[in-house]
């Protein structure tokens, strides 16, 4: 197992290298550059700026330079925001997104798994229909509708919660409630549907029939015999979901004024802020790769048929 873990960790390096390389060149192939704007700058100014950021060098040299910086842990200066470098923007905003993401995902997991199990066990009853209709709402109604609706109800009408803000403000932890619920809804819905279908499939399997034929109680059949197998698809969904949710959501951050990482995904691409784009891509990739690795480890604990050597 230890050997396996080390091998996997080493295997991440080439994967990351490939991601960095491909993104680096794709971004530069895309039309437009960081200093293009409606009002064209005087030739001389532009040249100065490009020289400052080494944009006048051949792309391959830029690539080498960038790779070298990244290996030292430096994601470079932002081409757009002059005050700080990319490291600063990412590592001040990422923790906020992680906090919100973990809370939202925890809500989604707890309620999603319970709801999915419940609908599977009560298949084709009103419990099932209600839960699944709710899940479909969660999947199909966009965040920019859910968010404002929740604000309108709980902040403006009932006055229980702040409309927006962050934990460092006056309202403290209360600010987490609405954005995390909004963010969790889609994940909740996906988990509930996934859990329901994998649960139904497991309940139909031969070994559950054996368990029934042995005279086991329903609760034992459910929790001891069915749950593990039914959780596997949910676990594989959670890897990428986790990576996605903790790197922030632009929409939720905008609505609730959360100082998270999500906005940089969008702004950096609009601005052709090459280094910031690369920064968020790298952070996202690292988290995704690590999450998939953790999923594999959890899998091996759940399923005795999988063993890593």
């Amino acid at each position, binding site marked *: 197992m230890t050997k396996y873990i080390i091998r996997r960790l080493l295997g991440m390096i080439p994967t990351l290298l490939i991601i960095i390389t491909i993104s680096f060149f794709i971004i530069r192939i895309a039309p437009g550059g960081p200093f293009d704007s409606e009002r064209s700058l005087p030739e001389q100014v532009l040249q100065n700026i490009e020289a400052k950021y080494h944009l006048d060098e051949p792309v391959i040299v830029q690539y080498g330079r960038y790779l070298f910086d990244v290996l030292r842990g430096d994601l470079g200066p932002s081409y757009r925001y002059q005050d700080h470098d990319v490291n600063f923007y990412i590592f001040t905003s990422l923790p906020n997104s992680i906090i919100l993401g973990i809370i939202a995902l925890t809500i989604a997991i707890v309620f999603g798994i319970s709801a999915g199990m419940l609908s599977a066990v009560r298949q084709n009853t009103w419990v099932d229909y209600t839960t699944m209709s709710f899940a479909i709402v969660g999947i199909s109604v966009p965040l920019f509708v859910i968010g404002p609706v929740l604000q309108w109800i709980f902040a403006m009408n009932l006055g229980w919660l702040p409309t927006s803000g962050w934990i460092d403000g006056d309202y403290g932890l209360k600010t987490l409630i609405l954005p995390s619920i909004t963010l969790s809804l889609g994940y909740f819905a996906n988990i509930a549907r996934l859990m329901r279908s994998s649960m139904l499939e497991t309940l139909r399997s031969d*070994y559950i029939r*054996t368990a029934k034929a*042995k*005279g*086991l109680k329903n609760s034992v059949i459910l929790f001891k*015999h069915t749950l593990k197998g039914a959780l596997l698809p949910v676990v594989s969904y959670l890897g990428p979901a986790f990576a996605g949710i903790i790197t922030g959501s632009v929409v939720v951050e905008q609505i609730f004024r959360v100082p998270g990482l999500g906005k940089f995904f969008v702004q950096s691409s609009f601005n052709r802020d090459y280094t910031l784009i690369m920064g968020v891509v790298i952070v996202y990739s690292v988290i995704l790769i690590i999450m998939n690795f953790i999923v594999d480890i959890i899998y091996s604990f*759940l399923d005795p*048929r999988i063993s890593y050597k």
Partner: protein
Amino acid sequence: MENNKDKVLEVKGLQTYFKTDSGVVKAVDGVSFDLYRGETLGIVGESGCGKSVTNLSIMKLIPSPPGKIVGGEVIFKGENIIALPEERLRSIRGNSISMIFQDPMTSLNPFLKISTQMVETIVLHQDMSKSEAKKKAIEMLTLVGIPAPEKRIDSYPHQFSGGMRQRVMIAMALSCNADVLIADEPTTALDVTIQAQILELIDELSKKLNTAVIMITHDLGVVAGMCDKVCVMYAGRIVEKALTEDLFGKPFHPYTSGLIQSVPRLDHATQEKLFSIEGQPPNLIDLPDCCPFHPRCHKAMDICRSKYPKLTEVEPGREVACWLYMDKGEDK
């Protein structure tokens, strides 16, 4: 043997239907048979004739919906299983009546150790502690011929071969001294060489433990080898019931003789082509009230196309549902 005290199971007029989108499937429609202590009953018939549904109904394990036991009784120790509350049923399942299934590769829980799966059954039904139950489980594994059972018991199912898993299933099924063991095609999924070993094991253990066995199979060779008596099923009903030697000696129902003729026989070296019954089994939805076998029967008569032949005793201990023999039956 024929006295009531030894009768362990009595199935009377069992009817199990499935509601599907295209109509009601009468998977089992009026099946009756008796099972006596220590005897082995074979149930044979083509795929889809209702063998598995019959036996799942005995344990009241029909998935519902879509399935429902709409009529009949299953009398076990004086009680009608079909009418029992769930809790009483659970104390019978896996204890007094246990089952082994066709596919040993999927019938054991892949996520739980063999020990967990065996011990939970024993603890549930017998007054034993976990460690006693484990001892009992090891004893059972020894009995079914698992080598080094003290070690192997802590393995997971995937660490066993198909044949070994079926042995584990048998050990588990018999660990509570069941009165009835229902074996639903226990060897279909196994290699031929393993098949014989497993059947022998079931035969030997059931004799030793005095367990009655219902052996579901579509292989008449299995029936000839180990069953005392046979029910031949066709389209959800029993069409012939006889002692094994009588059935093979002189099959009455044309369907039975078709089945017997289609068994490959080594002693008939000259046989050029294997006999097979032509045509397909009927759709179990909207079965007309006639003999369901008539479209495939060489000897079909007019009456076969218009009226269903009831299962009738035509000779002592022999029942058949065929108009060819009905006169004899109606003579009485």
